[in-house]
């Protein structure tokens, strides 16, 4: 009785019954790989929830204070308010540490899910017309997620993230012509300055989350408008969508997924320690720790900086210093290729048609091989970012690892791309063989005749 009355009440005021009905009946193709984007979405929601909690306790200030909380080894030490409030959250606020850790784990899962989702879209060709705009929105979301992660873990002003900030400052500094000015304006002066934490705080809790929220809305709206892609099956065609309805089945699954994503990051947040800032210590400009790495999704940038040979361009008293190539140029090319990919592929394949049926990766060997090569490239950069950890753990020379990775960086992607190409060809050949066998198999018998003892024939 309630629902009809509520529906009538709302429709009288909003006129939305038709929209409501079509929404409730919307069909969503169901395949597990279509839920990767939802994992990212729910990780974002969890980040918002835990993030709001943290903002009630975190103090984004660089003013120096003397610590007198309950973590004994730092008693009496001078540190920024930002660091002190992070210690307070970790040791003196009930449930503060689990909230902080859930927040950080959710950030790692957030970016991982985005990249997994992006890879799925890439390898199945879901970025093709009419979804080029949504692909570009997605790449922007990836950029924003990485930016928010970086600004976020720099907020506690601990030694590890402060080292990362120094490197970021130097990368900005290396930009030709305007680098010095940009660094001074962003950080409020020479490094470290007093403004970075406060500004990063605003960026991290307001500007980037708002941008993500807006772009997510656009991302989902486009998805609703264009409808989801689907795998080729007996029933699925280019002009229909086959699957479960939004209400109730899809809604129940997706709500369930939200709770399960939250459960996984909650388990990690309680059981596995992450970013123990009290061990790193408060940021001191003259101190540094061995094995300093950024969070994993920035690791590829770190690796690029480490592998770059000592080259730079100098002329007429000007220079484009070494960090520019690995820290600005290479990521610029990366994201340039990512943004342009749908248009590049359309041009090279001369395929400007609409596509709503997905490719199996093996059916597009060139794209799959290139994608695998690119992933290999960034995986090797990520490994290079941890070259000193590898050297220490496996008792190998860090210099040797660096030399080897410099070579592997080019040999690796070519090899994996080639192997992938061949594998895709092979799989397609087997598919074709199976098709042929099926079509040339003799037809099944239409009737079975038995001879009776008296000499007649009977069917059955």
């Amino acid at each position, binding site marked *: 009785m309630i629902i009809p009355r509520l529906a009538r009440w709302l429709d009288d005021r909003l006129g939305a019954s038709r929209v409501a009905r079509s929404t409730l009946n919307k069909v969503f193709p169901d395949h597990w790989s279509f839920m990767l984007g939802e994992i990212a979405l729910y990780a974002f929601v969890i980040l918002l929830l835990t993030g709001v909690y943290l903002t009630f306790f975190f103090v984004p200030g660089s003013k120096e204070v003397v610590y007198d909380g309950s973590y004994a*080894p730092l008693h009496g030490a001078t540190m920024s308010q930002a660091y002190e409030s992070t210690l307070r959250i970790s040791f003196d606020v009930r449930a503060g540490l689990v909230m902080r850790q859930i927040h950080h784990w959710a950030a790692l899962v957030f970016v991982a899910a985005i990249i997994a989702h992006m890879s799925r879209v890439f390898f199945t060709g879901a970025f093709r017309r009419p979804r080029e705009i949504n692909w570009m929105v997605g790449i922007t979301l990836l950029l924003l997620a990485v930016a928010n992660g970086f600004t976020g873990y720099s907020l506690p002003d601990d030694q590890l993230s402060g080292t990362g900030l120094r490197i970021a400052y130097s990368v900005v500094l290396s930009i030709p012509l305007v680098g010095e000015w940009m660094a001074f304006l962003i950080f409020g002066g020479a490094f470290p300055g007093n403004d970075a934490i406060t500004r990063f705080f605003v960026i991290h809790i307001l500007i980037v989350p708002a941008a993500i929220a807006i772009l997510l809305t656009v991302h989902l709206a486009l998805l609703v408008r264009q409808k989801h892609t689907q795998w080729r099956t007996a029933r699925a065609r280019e002009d229909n969508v086959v699957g479960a309805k939004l209400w109730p089945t899809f809604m129940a699954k997706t709500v369930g997924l939200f709770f399960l994503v939250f459960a996984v990051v909650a388990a990690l947040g309680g059981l596995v320690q992450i970013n123990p800032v009290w061990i790193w210590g408060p940021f001191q400009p003259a101190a540094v720790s061995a094995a300093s790495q950024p969070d994993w999704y920035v690791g590829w940038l770190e690796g690029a900086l480490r592998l770059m040979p000592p080259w730079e361009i100098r002329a007429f008293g000007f220079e484009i210093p070494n960090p520019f190539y690995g820290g600005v140029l290479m990521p610029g090319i990366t994201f340039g290729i990512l943004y342009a990919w749908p248009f590049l592929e359309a041009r090279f394949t001369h395929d400007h048609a609409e596509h709503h049926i997905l490719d199996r990766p093996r059916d597009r060997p060139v794209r799959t091989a290139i994608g695998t090569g690119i992933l290999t490239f960034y995986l090797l950069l990520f490994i290079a970012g941890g070259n000193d950890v590898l050297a220490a753990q496996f008792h190998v020379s860090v210099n040797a690892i660096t030399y080897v990775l410099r070579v592997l960086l080019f040999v690796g992607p070519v090899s994996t791309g080639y192997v992938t190409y061949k594998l895709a060809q092979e799989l397609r050949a087997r598919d074709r063989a199976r098709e042929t066998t099926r079509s040339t198999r003799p037809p099944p018998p239409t009737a079975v005749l038995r001879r009776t003892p008296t000499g007649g024939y009977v069917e059955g």
Partner: protein
Amino acid sequence: MSERDLTRRRAVLVGAIPAVAASVLALTLVPAIPAGAGSSSDTTTTTTATDGTDDAALVAEGRELYDISCSSCHGATGEGTDLGPDLVGVGAASADFMLRTGRMPDTNPSRQATAKRPAFDDRQIEALVAYVASLGPGPPIPNVDDPRGSLQEGASLFLLNCAACHSAAGDGGALSYGRNAPELHSVGRTQVAEAMRIGPGPMPVFGPDTFSNEEVNSIVEYVTYLRDPEEPGGISLGVIGPVTEGLVGIFVGLGVLVLVVRWIEARA
């Protein structure tokens, strides 16, 4: 009737909870910190600073042991050879450090000496230390309990002066060309102080005019703390840092969730 389709096997997972529990179990089996082979016990080391030459008989005993085990590389009277440096003036601290951490005898002098199980027992070490100390004046064995160090001062000094090589968590770190600054979790308290005073291998020398005895003892306090630091966050993955955290986030976090979505969309 079912189509002979190219259907891949789907891992049907009943409930995400067992998966999370299983991965947590797996995590607890991950080896934590690389354990340094061989350690020295604190209880049998003398805690009073000594130059080791008190007992002439001890020195003689040490001389005998030295002739057998050390003279081939360090020379008949400690003057050094191509294989080992001269030991005149290295002091009791050097000998005690090298012998108790098992770095000496060194079976592979071309590489950085690494900590191993000590080759001598306490009595023999005391004798050898006494003999080496008798070769010439050098740094004595430090007393790490007097003057009493301060944990807080130690934290501050360690983070500025030691973390760059040994990492903020004392897990050690890579140096050039295959050498490393070792982890500090399995080394004896006195040996930490000795290392600072003598500067073994690549390690710089921090003499009494660089750090006072009190400052050294503070650092020892903090290094001791790092063996069993406060880890309220849970399994620490050795505090290696974002590399291990990232691997866990991707393979455990996202990995479990991929299994979860495969379960959600598995056909009945």
